[in-house]
């Protein structure tokens, strides 16, 4: 199973090198699109900036290909694609990851080549991190938590490609991920400790008379504590990624509006003021994916560590 995860993550490295090619490709494509549809593009971005200025219906965001498709070729198909763009981009990310996984799975050797070495490094660090926090029993959670990290990281980064969109910048996706983690943690709690042990854990694990008397206080506290965990997980990821997207959109708008004063030529619609923030966005994407995974790991360890206590 770790082999499969290794190969799966193998693709990520393969894909990141392909993505740098894609970025330069898309950059030149975008310039062509802009020169051809200069008025349209400026309209769209200026429209977003104007929306932001008037405190419009939604927060400022850079447009993506599906939005362009709906604006340039209005019709029922593109409207459907635009309505569901959050889900479509998240599906696109996992389809790409799976496709690269399957492609890289064909060439694997006992003595690893460069890409396989990188992937094994990634898988080993994830595995060490999870097992370091949960203990040896954590091996069964490594695929779930490792996939969580890779999927969230790639989804966060995906929005930085011109014309693409990070699904994690919407509460829908992050809440779905947090609910998955929450349900899995509760299920594992019941599976490892048994139903009675699970309820015992929620009552605060009373061992003395004083603790038994405090059970009616502990019970609601623990329940509220468990319910806030998915809330905080989802809000943290959503806030960070949507915040970075908004930052980028506002700075792009600023760059364009600065150039608009100077009556720019068609090939230079604006100054790229947002470039330093792309580096900040890279850091934030990585850190937020790591924090989500780490917190999920800690929730697993909290739910299942009683079993190990009894065995010692």
């Amino acid at each position, binding site marked *: 199973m770790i082999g499969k995860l290794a190969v799966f993550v193998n693709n990520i490295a393969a894909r990141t090198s392909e993505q740098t090619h894609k970025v330069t490709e898309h950059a030149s494509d975008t310039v062509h699109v802009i020169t051809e549809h200069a008025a349209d593009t400026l309209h769209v971005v200026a429209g977003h900036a104007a929306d932001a200025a008037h405190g419009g219906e939604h927060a400022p965001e850079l447009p993506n290909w599906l939005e362009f498709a709906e604006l340039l070729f209005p019709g029922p198909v593109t409207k459907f694609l635009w309505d569901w763009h959050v889900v479509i981009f998240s599906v696109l990310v996992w389809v790409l990851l799976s496709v690269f996984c399957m492609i890289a799975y064909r060439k694997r050797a006992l003595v690893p080549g460069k890409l396989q070495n990188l992937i094994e490094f990634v898988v080993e660090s994830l595995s060490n991190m999870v097992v370091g926090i949960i203990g040896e029993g954590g091996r069964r959670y490594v695929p779930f938590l490792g996939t969580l990290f890779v999927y969230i990281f790639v989804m966060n980064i995906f929005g930085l490609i011109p014309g693409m969109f990070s699904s994690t910048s919407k509460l829908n996706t992050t809440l779905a991920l947090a609910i998955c983690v929450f349900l899995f943690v509760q299920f594992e709690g019941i599976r490892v400790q048994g139903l009675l042990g699970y309820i015992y854990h929620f009552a605060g694990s009373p061992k003395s008379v004083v603790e038994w008397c405090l059970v009616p206080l502990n019970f609601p506290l623990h329940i509220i504590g468990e319910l806030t965990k998915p809330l905080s997980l989802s*809000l*943290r990821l959503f806030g960070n990624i949507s915040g970075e997207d908004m930052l980028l959109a506002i700075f792009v708008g600023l760059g364009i509006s600065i150039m608009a004063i100077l009556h720019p030529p068609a090939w230079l619609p604006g100054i790229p003021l947002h470039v330093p923030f792309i580096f900040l966005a890279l850091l934030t994407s990585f*850190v937020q994916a790591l924090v989500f995974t780490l917190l999920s790991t800690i929730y697993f360890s909290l739910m299942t560590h009683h079993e190990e206590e009894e065995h010692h």
Partner: protein
Amino acid sequence: MDAETARGFLLPLTVAIAAIGSALGLGKAVGSAMDAMGRQPEAAGKIQTGMIIGAAFIEALTIYALVAVILLK
């Protein structure tokens, strides 16, 4: 002062106050991390990792305030 004026005035103030709190917290956290790194340079890697993760948690609280303001606007 009606509700609209109060809103327009208090919503940005909310984010500003949250930012002050998180700046103080982050300053303390990063400062302690720097002290620890100075005392034991070999552990610098681990301390740095822990600092980044701690900073993400502290930052999250400011993000909650930002999300609340965006939802209310």
